[in-house]
Every structure is written in structure tokens, then in C-alpha cells.
């Protein structure tokens, strides 16, 4: 099943001679551009949107996009089940979905990195205790926790962010701790200690800068993951509740109309795909450029 390279022998071009490097020195402009586009759209939503994403009109429900014969320019991307404009909802939905991704990841990474740094630095009992908690957290399925929260206090933007962060931090903790453990074996740490540097100084001056690469890669990769999880939660009824426009819940609302009103779920799905793909590709490139050893992330 493996691809046979062209030509008789194993024709390995420069790859053999050159050191193993990332996918290329080429900066991934398309993913970066896509992300910038969506962030801009989200930020400028009130200016660019054709209307109020909450304005219902039952009479106009399920209007197709403008390129269909029944479409109109009043609703360039059509309307949803309650007659709300799709373009407006996608633009405003960008705010919500991106905000969930950014907030959850920032929260999780700060807490997780802190825990990982402390565990890796102090080692011993502190490390053992923290890692037990981390392991316990890692084994709790995110979706179930979010469901439980949704059922207990009701689904909301905040609950989605909290539920995801509460589990996600453990991932960062584990990885950063691993990094720190390796770093702690190195000479310059021992030297700093001998020089009388305290924990805080070592952590902030030496450990953090050296784990920053890993952190950046992880953060980039996780934003997309969070957006996908939000979509799954909306499907199960534990996501961002109506009438707030969020891509995940828009797809979920339109899922029974895949053939009759395909645009209701396809367009937000396309949005999610583009944004998450962009983040994932960017993250991959970052990983390959910053440190190929991170391949197990």
C-alpha cells in the first residue's frame, strides 16, 4: 500500500542529505490569512452584518441563499428555521465561537502551565500529588462534564468555557511538566541554583522561556479542538443556548434539514471547518518549525 517512488531505486531527494526539518520553510500564509479574516469578521460584525442576527420572521423561514432562484439579496446566505439572516448569524457566531475557543484555551493553558511548572520544578511529593490530580482530570471525558453542568445549572456560554477549561488544563500540565523535567536535568539550571536563584526566578527566567514554544504550539492546536467540542455539545443540547448565534448550535439546529435546507447547517459547518483547519495547519507548522521533537503532541 505504500507509495512507490518514481524511478527504480529508492529515489530520496534532498531529504536524505538535509536534516529532518519541518514541512517547509514556507510560512503557511493561507491558514494565517483565514484566521485573520475570521477574526476581522468577528470584530467588525456589527458593521458588516446585513442585519440583526436575532430578528425573526417566520414567514421568511428557510429562504435559500441568493444564488438559488428563490434567494434574495436581502438575505445573501439565506435564512434559518425562524427566518433569521444566515450571514448575520455567521458573522456574530464567529464572535461567540472564537471567544469560546480563545477563553477556554487561555484559561486552561495558564492554569495548566502553572501546574506543570510547579510540578516539574519541585518534583517529589508535590509532583506526585499534582500528577495524580492531573491524571484524574485527564480521564474525565470533557463532553460528560459539560453535559452534567448543562443539566445542573443550565447551558450557557460561561458553562461551556468552564467545563472545557476544567478538563483541558490537565493536558497542558502534563506536557509542560514533561518539558520541565527534561530542562531540570540541564546544567544551566544547576548553575542558576548554585548562584542562589530562588524558585520564582528560575521558573520565570529559565523555565518559562524554554517552554514557551511548546505552549504556543499547544494553544494553537487546542483552539480548533475547543470549537469542535462546542459544536458537539450543542448537538447534545449542552452547548451555547438559543437564541445566541454560535456555529455549533447553528449546525445542530439545521441538522434535520440537510437536504431540504442544506445551507442552514452547511454554511456554519464550512465556517468551522475553515477556521479549525487553519488553526490546525498553523499549529502543525509551528510545531515543525519550533521543535520537531514535539511530534507526540
Amino acid at each position, binding site marked *: *500500500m505504500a507509495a512507490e517512488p518514481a524511478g527504480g531505486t529508492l529515489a530520496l531527494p534532498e531529504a536524505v542529505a538535509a536534516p529532518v526539518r519541518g514541512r517547509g520553510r514556507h510560512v503557511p500564509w493561507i491558514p494565517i490569512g483565514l484566521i485573520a479574516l475570521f477574526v476581522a469578521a468577528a470584530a467588525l460584525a456589527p458593521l458588516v452584518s446585513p442585519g440583526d442576527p436575532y430578528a*425573526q420572521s417566520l414567514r421568511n423561514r428557510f429562504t435559500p441563499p441568493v444564488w438559488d432562484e428563490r434567494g434574495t439579496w436581502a438575505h445573501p446566505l439565506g435564512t434559518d428555521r*425562524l427566518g433569521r439572516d444566515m450571514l448575520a448569524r455567521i458573522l456574530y457566531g464567529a464572535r461567540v465561537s472564537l471567544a469560546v475557543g480563545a477563553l477556554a484555551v487561555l484559561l486552561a493553558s495558564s492554569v495548566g502551565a502553572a501546574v506543570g511548572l510547579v510540578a516539574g520544578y519541585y518534583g517529589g511529593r508535590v509532583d506526585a500529588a499534582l500528577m495524580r490530580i492531573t491524571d484524574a482530570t485527564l480521564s474525565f471525558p470533557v463532553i460528560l462534564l459539560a453535559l452534567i453542568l448543562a*443539566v445542573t445549572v443550565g447551558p450557557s456560554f460561561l458553562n461551556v468555557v468552564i467545563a472545557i477549561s476544567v478538563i483541558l488544563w490537565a493536558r497542558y500540565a502534563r506536557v509542560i511538566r514533561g518539558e520541565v523535567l527534561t530542562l531540570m536535568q540541564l546544567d544551566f539550571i544547576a548553575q542558576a541554583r548554585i548562584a542562589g536563584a530562588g524558585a520564582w526566578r528560575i521558573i520565570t527566567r529559565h523555565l518559562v522561556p524554554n517552554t514557551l514554544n511548546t505552549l504556543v504550539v499547544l494553544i494553537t492546536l487546542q483552539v480548533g479542538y475547543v470549537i469542535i467540542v462546542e459544536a458537539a455539545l450543542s448537538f447534545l443540547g449542552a452547548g451555547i*443556548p*438559543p437564541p445566541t448565534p454560535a456555529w455549533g448550535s447553528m449546525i445542530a439546529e439545521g441538522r*434535520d434539514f440537510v437536504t431540504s435546507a442544506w445551507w442552514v447547517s452547511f454554511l456554519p459547518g464550512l465556517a468551522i471547518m475553515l477556521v479549525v483547519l487553519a488553526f490546525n495547519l498553523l499549529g502543525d507548522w509551528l510545531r515543525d518549525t519550533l521543535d520537531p521533537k514535539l511530534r507526540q503532541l
Partner: protein
Amino acid sequence: MKRLSRIVALSLALAVVALTFTAPAGAQPKTELTIALSSFSAETLDPALQGHNVKYYLSLMFDYLVGTTPEGQPSQAGGLASKWENSADHKRWTFHLRKGVKFHTGEEMTSEDVKFSLQRAMGKRSTTGYAGPLRTLIQDIETPAPDRVVIVTRDPTLIIPTYLSRSLSTEGMVLPKKYIEANGDDGFARKPVGTGPFKFVEQVVGSHIKMTAVDNHWRIGTPKYKTVTFKLVPEETTRIALLRRGEVDVTDISRERVKEIQKENFPVHFRKEEAIIHMWWVLGPDGRVGPTKDKRVREALNLAIDRNEVAQSIFGGFAEPAAIPMGLSWAFKDVGFKPTPDMQYAYDPARAKKLLAEAGHASGFPLDMYAFQLPGFAEGKAFAEAIAGYWEKIGVKPKLIPVDYPAFRKLWVDRKAPEAVGYYNVANRDWIGTFALLEKQAYTPSKLNDTVNDAEIDGMIAQVLRQTDRDKINALMRNIFTRLRSEHYGVPVVYVHSPYATSKTLGKWNPGAVMYDLFIDQLAASK
């Protein structure tokens, strides 16, 4: 060379993996009937533990004391009692049982089993819907002969046969005394045994329930289908795909996809007016609070809704505007009630705004609306959003709160969210069932669930409880409906028709007009 060996190795690996899974299923033989449902509600197979009346599959495994026609009328042909009569004072009801009816274990059904089943349904462990009223009503159960049961009530009453029939809940199901005493309640729930036309085979909770036909059953002859399987398939796209593939014969579908299915020539059966979508305001600890205390506000909230538009758009045209709060239309015929044209709410937002201003709320007021999904009501959240939209247009400030129904129910029953709006797709039912519902939701002494809090209605309900004259009862019921409407004690929105799509080869089927029952046994009947 190595490519070939690699392919061979991979194929072998896949084959090994494949062998660990079960053999592929063959084509669907015509002797199997498969029904896909979006929800099983309570899944326990013990009739006494069914808090929510769902009888789709129970009605095939068990027989009732009193039978019901698909239209909901008591029938002497469909139940274990071939006839019944009451004493002159309406306090003694005698039921004559069929002879020669056997349980699936082979034992003969006698009056001892009937007495045992009824006591069990009324017992402490029972969570059935009408256990409470039966407990207060029934004083004693006598078994003068193996084929005769006499039920003695404390007060004169007309409702005993209906309460023990198929038209309401499961209290009338007859269970095997010896089998349950020998195997215990849990053993019975694991392997239920009844006298119905189908025998239990297996249940995987959350997945399916399978049963097999009994030969030559007294109720329907030898069933046309050897096996009946109920499958739980929550996702609608999947149910429809199963129908298209011929893997299921009957499935419930949402109203919004009916046209799509009909275009492909699948027959769609409707249970007309299967439920009323009814909204109410949660009462405070001592009754109605807030702006809805004023009758004009309640009327305004009703006038603000364009019921025709809701019926056409949200429910795909498979709904009719409703006018009577808690007006279960299958009961109207029974009591001779006919809603007059002026009872229909007009769509009049201008007048609504005027009424609000008159009541002192010209600038509106905040209103909490709980939005949840319910089984059989896929449009739930969209519906709540739509109504909120209408109310916004008259100045009210609705706030949608998405919790699931159990959480809302707690707030409702604990009265912790006064004036909050909730809704339900209340299953339609005959007059006795309707009365039982009103006695819970429109009767102040029932405390927890009351949504009405009106002394006049309380008085009328109390009278019905004690009446044995049908004419007087009917008159009281008509007056209750009229007053519910004139005082706007709720927001009745639409009656919905529930669609069930079947395979093209299924044949005639009348799903009936009985609460939570699909009369699948009629599909399988050979007589």
C-alpha cells in the same frame, strides 16, 4: 512482490477483525415488524413502575381488564373483562372475566391475578399516573369466583372501568400473581410475563425491545408478524434512513420532514390532534403574582401570537390553532362541548398592546421563558423562540432560559420561579383522563401542580368528583372549559398532529386516538 504480500497481510488482518463481529444480517423477512421511535420514555417493563404512561410496547405484552377501541371508547372485545356492570349505588363494580386466557408461562388467568395486579398497581412501590386516585377511591377488591372480580369503592363513582382500561395508563394491566411472587419484582421486570399477543424476548436498555408472537391469541388471532422489535433511534435522519433502507417498518417523524417523506411515496399516518401545546405561568407560593395577575395581561399575551403562522411554519401545517387552555379536544365530544368561533383567539397585537397599557404595563415587563425539548416535540426550542419573538413585538421582554424539562419541573412544583412561562405537549385524552389532568393542574388543593388558582373552577372540579349523573358531569366540564377560556388561564397555542411514516408494503393501520398508544397490535391482527 512485497506490495502483494502487504495486501494479503492487510486483508488477513481485516478478515480476522471482521470475524470478531457478528455475521451480517440478512434481508428483512416479512414476518418481522420493526418500529423505530425517537424516545422510549420510561424503559422499565414493569407496568407498575411506569410513571409516564407510555404503553407502545406494554400493550402488546399485557392485556387490560377493560378493552378500548382505537377511538378510545370502552370495548367489551378488547379486554379481559367480557362484560361489567355496576350496582345501583355505583359503589360496586363487577367484572366478568374471559375463560381460558393463559399467561405466557402457561398458567390460566383468574380473578386472583386481577386482584393481585390491582393491589400492586396501587401499592407503595407503584409510580403509575393514577395510582393515587385509585388508592383513595378503592376500598376493597373481592374475588367471588375465578372468573369474577368485584371492586368496591368508598364513594359512588363512574370512572372505575375507564381507569382500568387501555385509554389511560397501565393500572388495568393484568399480571401473573404466581410468577411475580416466585420471581420477585426485579425478576419480573427483567423477564416480564403477561397474557398479551406477544411474548417478551429481550431488552437492551437504551437500544431495543424484542418480542415474539403467541399463537392464536384471543385478542387478535395469530399475529401476522412473528417478531416485533421496538428500536430506540434518537436521531431523525437516521430513522428516516432506516425507513428508506427497509430496515424499519414504522417510525415517528417530525412534522417538518413529512413533505419530504411523502414525496418518496412512503405512507404517512397522522394521529390527529395528538397533543395540545399549552403554555402556563408558574404560580407563586400563594397564587398568581406579577403582571399576569391581571386578566387583561393574560389576554394580551394570548392575542399577541399568530397561531396560524405558528401552525403553518413551525409545525409545517400539521397543527390547528387551539383556543381553550388545557382543552383536550378528544374530551370535547364526550362532554358535548363545542368551542364557538368567538372563542378562537384573533391575532391582534395592537389590541394586545392596548390591553397591556390599560393594565398599567405600557412599557412591558420582563418574563422568564423556559425553553426545553420534550419527547414527541422536536420543535420545542424553536417554538419557544418564536413565541418569545411575538411577545417582544408587543413590548414584553422575554428571557429564554434553556434548562431541560426535569429542571423546569422542579422549579414549577417548588414554586420557585413565579410567573415564569413553561409549556408542554399535553397528550390528548378522553374526558376522564382530562378530568384527572384538570384535577392536578387546575385545582388549588392539589397544590404542587396547580397552574390556575381559581375558586370557581375549584368548586366545579370538586363537584365532578362526587357526581354520578353523566349529564351533570358533562355540564360541569363544559363550564370548566368555558371559564378556563374566559379567564385566559394559560396560553393554548396549537393542537399538533403527529406523523408516523411506514414502509410502502405495510398495509392498513389505524394508530388510534388513545393516549400514548399506537395500537401496533392492530397492525399485527389477523382477525
